[in-house]
């Protein structure tokens, strides 16, 4: 296995605040890699740097042969990195199917003239995209609901729809920002199975921000722990569970000693 995404001494500041501090992360291809840490540790900032929403001040982000620093989000998604958001950000007044079609935007080519003139190539492309969108709807168990507005779906289905929209861009890496937030235990379990399914069936590398320890420990191969923008630990779930620094970061000083 080889690293698909590597950050090298990446630093992102907001004024005086260092949100991500000289971070080195290496993501193995086809793995489920979790990023955990207390609130404000810089997890979402890391995601925003990788997907081009923020430009890190220092350091490099290498995705295969490409450097991601300074690239705009629309370029990065074309390279094969898609994401979901902590607070669901679907296009609320577009239908489920249209949301997925927008997700596949970068794989369609037709422009103004193709659409106006109804060129055969454009029609074929639209037909294929539409079939693909329906398949994705099947895949997330929303068969036949393609024409409903995205905002009218229940919470869990919106989460899955957002993942489907990200999948429509045919990513190599999928960044999931708290996909099980606000879910009950059975929904959470279903989401975990779904994520593993994505990795196993579609061969997508998953980077996961998650707060529920049961999820993190259950499905990830590697866990990176951030605190105040710095990496304080990295390893497999068993190593992280017994790491004194991690326990201290989560529970405060002295807790590590008590735990042993």
């Amino acid at each position, binding site marked *: 296995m080889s690293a698909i995404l590597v950050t090298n001494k990446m630093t992102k500041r907001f004024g005086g605040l260092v949100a991500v501090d000289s971070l080195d992360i290496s993501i193995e291809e086809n793995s489920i890699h979790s990023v955990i840490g207390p609130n404000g540790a810089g997890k979402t900032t890391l995601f925003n740097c990788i*997907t081009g929403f923020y430009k890190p001040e220092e350091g490099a982000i290498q995705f295969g042969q490409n450097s991601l620093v300074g690239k705009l*989000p*629309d370029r990065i998604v074309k390279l094969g990195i898609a994401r979901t958001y902590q607070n669901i950000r679907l296009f*609320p007044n577009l239908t489920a199917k249209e949301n997925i079609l927008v997700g596949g935007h970068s794989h369609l080519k037709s422009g*103004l003239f193709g659409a106006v003139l109804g060129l055969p190539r454009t029609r074929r492309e639209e037909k294929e995209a539409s079939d693909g969108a329906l398949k994705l709807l099947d895949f997330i168990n929303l068969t036949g609901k393609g024409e409903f507005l995205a905002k*009218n779906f229940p919470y869990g289905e919106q989460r899955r729809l957002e993942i489907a929209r990200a999948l429509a861009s045919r990513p190599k890496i999928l960044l999931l920002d708290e996909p099980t937030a606000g879910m009950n235990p059975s929904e959470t379990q279903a989401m975990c199975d779904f994520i593993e399914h994505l990795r196993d069936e579609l061969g997508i590398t998953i980077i996961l921000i998650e707060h529920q320890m049961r999820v993190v420990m259950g499905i990830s191969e590697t866990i990176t722990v951030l605190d105040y923008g710095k990496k304080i630990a990295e390893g497999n779930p068993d190593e992280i569970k017994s790491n004194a620094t991690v326990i201290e970061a989560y529970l405060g000083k002295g807790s590590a000693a008590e735990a042993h």
Partner: protein
Amino acid sequence: MTHARSIWNNGVKTGIIGGVAVLIISLVGMVVSFNRRDIIFEFIAMGHTLLLMTGILIGYTAAKKTTATTTMVKCFNAVVASLVTFSFLALLVIIGNAVNLRAILVNASPMLYKALTLGHHDSAAGIFIILGIGLLCGICAAVLYSVPTAVRRITITALCSVVIAGVLQDLLRPVLLAWGPMSVISDFLFAGNGLTAAGALTVILVIAGIMTVWNFKGDDVKENYQHFSGGTQRGIKIGAFVLLACVLLILPQIVGLFLSEVLTIVGLYVLLGLGLNIVVGYAGLLDLGYVAFFAIGSYVTAILTSPELGFFALNFWQALPFAVLVGICFGVLLGIPVLKMRGDYLAIATLGFGEIIRILVLSDALRPWLGGAQGINKIGKPSLMGYEFSQPQEIYYFILAGCLLVVFISMRLKDSRLGRAWMAMREDEDVAQAMGINLVATKLLAFASGAGFSALSGAIFSAKIGSVYPHSFSVFISINIICLIIVGGMGSIPGVIVGAAALVGLPELLREFADYRMFVYGAALVAMMLLRPEGLWPDVRHKMELHKDESVAEEPQVSTAT
């Protein structure tokens, strides 16, 4: 005490609002001037109809708003509200008879009092007549409230049809008179300056009859339509289109010169509206300087075709592509500086751009090239195979062709990759970018297509008028177009057409009441926003958006676990 008061509290409150409304309607002079036209000849005049409709509406609203359990109390409130409303008018007559109000309120004339009291303004009987009418309105409102929904809907539609037929008599009569045998119908329906009593009754019965039949059979028809095969459904649709096309083609021949002129104006606004609909409705970019591209299209055509300036002497068709092209270029040029702006900031910046263009064409410095305040005359008329489009009836076809082209393009774009990108951008710009949408290119394409349509209508406008003046391109045109899009329904193509007909066509038909145009405009916009914010003919999507509860209720909420 408190209990007694609370029973009719709502009626009084609503009635006061209604009272202020009828006072304003009367004191701005609407009643008197509207009364010059009859709805039903020698029976009821337009001004009176307006007051009656207000009275009934207020009564109905009071009944609906009252949170009482019994229908009795609600109906009581309706009567109270209407009575209070009309007592304001009674009070006006009493005060007006005692003191001369004309010094400050120009329209508080004996003619108004006469109109309000049906001619008994100098006796006490007048007051009782006003209150009696109020009572009558209240009873009507109460009855309307207590009857079943279906009956209410039929009654209101039938009565409104009569009012519409009366108001639009200038439109209907020439159409009916155009063809010999139809003039019999015209003579039966209309007399003097209104409908005949028999005509009005016929309209009521026919409309009510159609509505009743549709109520019973409508669902069956819809169901039958669903059961038709795809081919038959398409056949019906094509048939409907052919019928519509025929009507559109022969329309200017039957409605005559004046109405053809109105149709061409509406057509121009449809063209403008469809262009702005792409920018505002699809892409969500609030552009208040839209008239700039209209001006650019007009002026480019003028400069290229008019012999007055003596630069070029192209004919209209040679100039048209240049006009559109220059419009598109300016669309992009305007787009570039405002790429990073959103919402209100964008609106203000574009507003400025629109004014800059108007002031530039007005300026003396550019006068040798742009004609200054005198404008440019003798603009080339479009001609096709030696046939010149100069009469409104001929220009109509030209504009119709333009509208059809733009409707077609709008429809194609809406369900395309580009249309989806625009809508995604409208919903959430950041996420749209993260989905691979190039914001710069997509925004500029929206500005450019909108500007292209606007320049096209500008070119047609200049050819139609034959001359261009800076004052034709005031910011008011931009506002007008935005309004018609909002009233019609954001992002909806039929909405633009309905909006243009309602906000541009109707005022042209009611030219004699032009003084009240802005007043009615404002009132209509406020009413629209309160009662039907999704517009007259909304896009399916927006309908679902604003009536969320209903659409959710229709959906099966199946929770599936993966």
